[in-house]
């Protein structure tokens, strides 16, 4: 069992951290205040390969695995969870095409997406179903050579900036009644709708998608009609959920650094507060949460790189890291005292960002259901 990173992974981490500090950090406050996505930063990330990190090399990507993706997202998330979420959603949008697309579909979309010429997303959630995937009501009816899609999706990240969108729609009833389609943003009958005003992950665009007789060529079906539930749940479990986990891990890392740095500088009772036991207990709680979350996150990535099915492990990592991120952000605010509540400083933003991650890609309660299925087999 070797926990040491490889030299390649070390260079990867160092390179992404350097980029994040130089290009993303100066934008973080502005993102939080304006809720605007810094498209120039996304463009730079695309050119450097951040978006195509797991796209196979023959389609213009880096062909790296889940551990490499985890490193990239953790380092971006350490500076901005909002940017990490934007990035990981592009990976999620790419995923069904890479896993279940035909050769023609892969050649058509993967190079464009890997280069960041178009961004992507994957849309499942509707007012009637998110946790309850079978509750979605967007329909897709075959008419000749096209499917006609009608419905609305909500709380979709990258809703207004994605050019290639994976959409889950009903083509029948029950578990075999869902199908994944690729919709391009210029298709007639498609438009982004309301843009949400979130209290966290600001600078990551989230909104509604509206389909009004949106015509989609039948060549844009991913897999076969009726494969949608399997494709969607696999993409969410293996790409979307871990992506959120990495953003949470980045938040916890940021909490640790902010809390340690502040506590060494802040002098009360004639000494830095880092020498007070109460503060040290908070710091060690954050430190333990960071190490534990990191192990769970990288372990599940390692399993995915081995090609093993690991829905439970993905769920454990997501639940643990996201809940820990909220805990650690709260403790960071406690260490900062009143300063922790000021909009100019990081801790309050970390808490707001962490809370948003809990409901993304499956709520904590849904993660418990996923874990329960595995836990019940262990004796």
């Amino acid at each position, binding site marked *: 069992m070797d926990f040491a990173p490889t030299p390649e992974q070390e260079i990867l981490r160092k390179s992404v951290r*350097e980029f994040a500090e130089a290009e993303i950090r100066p934008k973080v406050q502005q993102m939080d205040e304006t809720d605007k996505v810094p498209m120039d930063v996304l463009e730079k990330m695309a050119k*450097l390969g951040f978006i195509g990190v797991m796209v196979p090399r023959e389609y213009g990507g880096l062909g790296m695995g889940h551990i490499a993706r985890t490193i990239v997202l953790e380092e971006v998330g350490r500076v901005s969870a909002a940017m990490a979420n934007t990035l990981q959603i592009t990976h999620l949008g790419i995923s069904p095409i890479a896993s279940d697309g035909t050769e023609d579909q892969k050649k058509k979309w993967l190079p464009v997406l890997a280069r960041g010429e178009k961004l992507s997303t994957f849309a499942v959630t509707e007012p009637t179903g998110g946790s309850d995937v079978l509750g979605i009501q967007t329909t897709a009816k075959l008419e000749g050579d096209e499917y006609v899609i009608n419905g609305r999706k909500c709380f979709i990240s990258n809703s207004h900036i994605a050019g290639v969108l994976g959409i889950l729609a009903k083509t029948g009833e029950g578990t075999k009644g869902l199908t994944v389609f690729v919709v391009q943003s210029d298709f007639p009958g498609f438009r982004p709708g309301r843009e949400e005003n979130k209290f966290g992950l600001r600078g990551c665009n989230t909104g509604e998608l509206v389909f009004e007789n949106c015509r989609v060529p039948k060549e844009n079906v991913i897999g076969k009609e009726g494969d949608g539930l399997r494709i969607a749940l696999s993409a969410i479990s293996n790409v979307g959920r871990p992506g959120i986990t990495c953003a949470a891990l980045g938040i916890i890392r940021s909490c640790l650094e902010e809390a340690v740095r502040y506590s060494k500088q802040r002098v009360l009772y004639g000494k830095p507060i880092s020498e007070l036991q109460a503060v040290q207990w908070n710091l060690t709680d954050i430190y333990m949460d960071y190490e534990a979350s990191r192990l769970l996150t990288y372990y599940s990535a390692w399993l995915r790189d081995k090609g093993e099915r690991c829905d439970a492990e993905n769920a454990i990592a997501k639940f643990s890291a996201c809940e820990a991120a909220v805990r650690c952000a709260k403790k960071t605010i406690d260490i900062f005292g009143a300063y922790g509540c000021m909009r100019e400083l990081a801790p309050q933003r970390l808490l707001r960002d962490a809370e948003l991650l809990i409901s993304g890609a499956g709520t904590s309660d849904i993660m418990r259901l996923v874990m329960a299925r595995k836990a019940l087999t262990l004796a």
Partner: protein
Amino acid sequence: MPPVNSIVCVKPVPDPRYWSELALDPATKTLRREGIPVVLNPLDRHALEEALRIKETFGGTVTAISMAPLTATDSLREAIAIGADDAVLLSDKSFAGADTLATAYVLAAAIKKLGRFDLILCGNQSLDGGTGQVGPEIAEFLGVPHVAYVRKIDLPEQGIARVERGLEYGYMVVEARMPLVLSVVKEINVPRHVSLMRISEAMQAEVRVWASRDLDVDSSRIGLSGSPTQVADLFIPETKRRGEMMRGAPDVVSKLLIERLRELGVL
């Protein structure tokens, strides 16, 4: 204009974010660097960037070279990931303890072995040593011109470099024949970020490692024995502030101040 072949001297230095964890070893008068992450010397990143821009304009090759322990292989792979075509590491126990002169001697020997070059680019000084001596010393050993504090490089015609050399106030334009050594400052460019797309290739690339036996060097001129400067002491100076109040009319106080500064040896 024919292609321009550049050699970039790079040095791994302690990551400045971890400097507070560096400790002085009072016995050996060196820094304890174990466990401290390293980065490419920041000014060497600017040198490498400039070499890459010249290559993108005129063609040619960029070779990164470093005299360092074997662990510096990773730093040289980083240079390849940034864009260098290849890399050479000069690593040997006999190189240890080298001051700037012995370091420059070995680097110059390796550069002679590499063969024809048009430009040698260095960062003006390293973050940890800060002497700024290695670039000029390499030039002397190679018998080529050298310009330091370079903030702009133009190659107006074959074999000629026209550079801006920064001065305390302003700059001077210097024209020199290639090959030559240029030590660059940070104002010269903004280094590119590492493209993740090159990392895998960089890990596969061969980093040539040359020991002293691979170079045409005199053993008395390398390492500690080849170093005319010896570190006598290494310490963190204590900075204390002392205040003295001088009261009176400006012309009286100014005379008092001058006398006091003379007493203290400042003037």
